[in-house]
């Protein structure tokens, strides 16, 4: 029974599971839910999506998607001149948005794969969400390299297939490395996402209310029965995929950074880019996960599964990578000074005080100063503050790519080549349209696919652990199953069995 001495019992209603008390592990699933409660909560999301709010949101994202279609049509029919790209700024919004979206995708793989390897059980509530975000972000990203070439009908030249010219792509080029890296990342992430959903689609199949949904979910779940022999292989596959995805995600954004780092431009030609970009990607990605998770948990009734502890942990990870990014900014400035390389120094002075100095200053505010709020518990516990900080970071990460790309290009070595860049309406609407693509896919995911990894959440609940009774020595253990968290979220304080893994 919950007692006053139980540190999780506060007032009897709302439970604070962000407390770190070594005597009592904070529960990850609140509301006294058992396995069926978890299933009911997640399956209910589909019913909640069958509502006016969903249709309105879906309608808005569809209209943004149509923006994208129209601007793409303009681009294909008229040419790259509809953008503001010029000489010297030959890469602008197209590559900024590409790196922006690819970066956002990385948080999903980090949550799914890297946090799994670190045995962070709290990832189970958000990993499906985050993986979906990865897939949709990579789709938005992969569009840009395909369309930004002047003759998009020749995009097939990117792939190493025998052709009538007898030529092959040049594998030493970072742009070819991008093809392999982003292509592999998209394929592996999609496989990982889909195969992770198989047991949960099986749950949806068994709860299907109409013949059509039963048929489709049966097909998609491949006939999954939950056989323990299947689970054994499934778990091995999951671990191996996580272990593979970890170097993959680190390599993909490193390869994207090589697009810049292998050049000669001051501000681009630095070996610091791979870790800097990867940290930045995780930073922006977590900000997007939080931007999506905070409204979704509210509107879809997921507060007991995406708890304040989850939000707290995500804020801490975000702060951690944010400090790495802030460090990276300082390192760039320090190296420019220390190297006494005239061009590098001029470049960085130009970054801060030149025509795009406003972007550089805003970047520091958005990415370095505002997120320092997350050091404070009150800020992390206040969802509105977290949402606002996350959006500052989203804007900041876009600005970071803008600063890197545009300021390095617009003034490089010879002043005679200097120029300025101004985006056109097509640039802006295409970017907005990419959000339309992202949110359209995301809302479809919310409506039709299992929003959370129910099987994984159940496996990290205390009731998931059991063991055979030992007949030979009786050590006074009670052999009952651990009781589920009570209605106020606290677990009974009797007989604290130290089970492995726990429910962190």
């Amino acid at each position: 029974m919950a007692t006053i001495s139980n540190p999780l019992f506060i007032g009897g209603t709302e439970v604070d599971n962000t407390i770190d008390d070594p005597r009592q592990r904070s529960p990850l699933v609140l509301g006294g839910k058992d396995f069926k409660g978890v299933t009911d909560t997640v399956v209910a999301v589909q019913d909640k999506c069958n509502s006016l709010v969903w249709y309105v949101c879906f309608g808005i994202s569809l209209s943004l998607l149509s923006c994208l279609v129209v601007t793409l049509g303009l681009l294909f029919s008229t040419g790259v001149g509809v953008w503001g790209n010029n000489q010297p700024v030959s890469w602008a919004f197209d590559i900024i948005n590409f790196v922006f979206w690819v970066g956002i995708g990385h948080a999903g793989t980090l949550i799914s794969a890297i946090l799994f390897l670190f045995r962070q059980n709290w990832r189970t509530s958000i990993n499906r969400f985050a993986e979906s975000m990865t897939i949709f972000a990579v789709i938005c990203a992969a569009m840009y390299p395909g369309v930004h070439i002047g003759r998009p009908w020749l995009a097939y030249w990117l792939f190493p297939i025998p052709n009538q010219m007898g030529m092959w792509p040049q594998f030493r080029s970072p742009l070819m490395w991008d093809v392999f890296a982003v292509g592999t990342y998209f394929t592996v992430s999609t496989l990982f996402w889909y195969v992770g959903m198989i047991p949960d689609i099986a749950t949806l199949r068994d709860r299907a209310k109409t013949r059509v949904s039963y048929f489709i979910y049966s097909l998609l779940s491949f006939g999954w029965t939950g056989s323990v022999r299947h689970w054994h292989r499934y778990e091995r596959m999951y671990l191996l995929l996580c272990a593979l995805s970890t170097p993959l995600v680190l390599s993909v954004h490193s390869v994207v950074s090589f697009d810049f780092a292998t050049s000669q431009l001051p501000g681009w030609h630095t070996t610091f880019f791979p870790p800097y970009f990867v940290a930045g990607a995780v930073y922006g990605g977590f900000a997007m996960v939080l931007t999506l998770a905070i409204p979704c948990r509210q509107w879809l009734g997921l507060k007991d599964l995406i708890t304040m502890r989850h939000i707290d942990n995500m804020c801490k990870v975000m702060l951690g990578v944010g400090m790495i990014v802030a460090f990276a900014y300082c390192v760039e400035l320090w190296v420019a000074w220390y190297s006494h390389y005239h061009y590098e120094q001029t470049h960085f002075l130009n970054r801060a005080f030149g025509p795009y100095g406003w972007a550089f200053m805003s970047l520091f505010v958005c990415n370095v100063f505002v997120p320092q709020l997350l050091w404070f518990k009150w800020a992390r516990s206040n969802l509105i503050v977290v949402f606002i900080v996350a959006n500052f970071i989203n804007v900041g990460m876009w600005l970071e790519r803008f600063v890197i790309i545009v300021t390095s290009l617009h003034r490089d070595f010879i002043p005679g080549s200097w120029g300025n860049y101004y985006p056109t309406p097509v640039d802006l609407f295409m970017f907005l349209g990419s959000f339309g693509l992202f949110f359209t896919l995301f809302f479809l995911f919310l409506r039709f696919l299992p929003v959370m990894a129910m099987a994984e959440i159940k496996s990290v609940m205390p009731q998931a652990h059991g063991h055979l009774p030992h007949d030979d020595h009786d050590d006074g253990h009670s052999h009952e199953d651990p009781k589920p968290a009570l209605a106020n979220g606290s677990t009974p304080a009797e007989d604290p069995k130290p089970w492995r893994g726990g429910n962190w």
Partner: protein
Amino acid sequence: MSTATLETEVRLVRDPSIDASIDIEQSETVAVLAEYDTVTAVMIAADKVRKAGYSRWDVHSPFPIHGIDPIIGIKPTILPWIVLAGGTFGMLAGLFLTIYTMATEIESLGQFSGYPYLISGKPLLSLPAYIPPIFELTILFSAFGAVFGMLLLNNLPMLYNPLFRNHRFKRATDDRFFVVIETADPKFDEYETVKLLRSTKPLAIERVED
């Protein structure tokens, strides 16, 4: 409802909205299932079934139960080796692709010949520059090995399974655990098997019809 009583073994009326098109005239029992609602109960039951010497049986759960593998006697899977094979193949494929296309030229092959680019004297066999594509292909084929290996080893997709006709089994993906013993098992006996299952105190025991 007492958990110790045995529910009727006569199959209940099926939900017509799902099973309307299935011919139910000639159905035979292919297995017997027992339903449990706690992990410990199903582990105890699995232990008993294994010790009784059954070979064609299985446990079904909504999530992977840690610690049940030694109880059932599941041998470690060969999947890691399949992944290694995939990764090795990917690496060799990447090496072949980059070296063949960038550093060789056999003119009689026409469009399938390599095409070495002469770029300011850079080496043709520049393996460090080829590492990114080779690495990505290694990961790609390892992942294929993992995913498709798992599906093949598990005989998935297997869209037809008599278990899906059982109404109770729908909770196997929700919150209940099942022990299923096939009638094709050599030790299967209608009375003894059910008696064994009954001794594990399940919530219910039912036939699985085909």
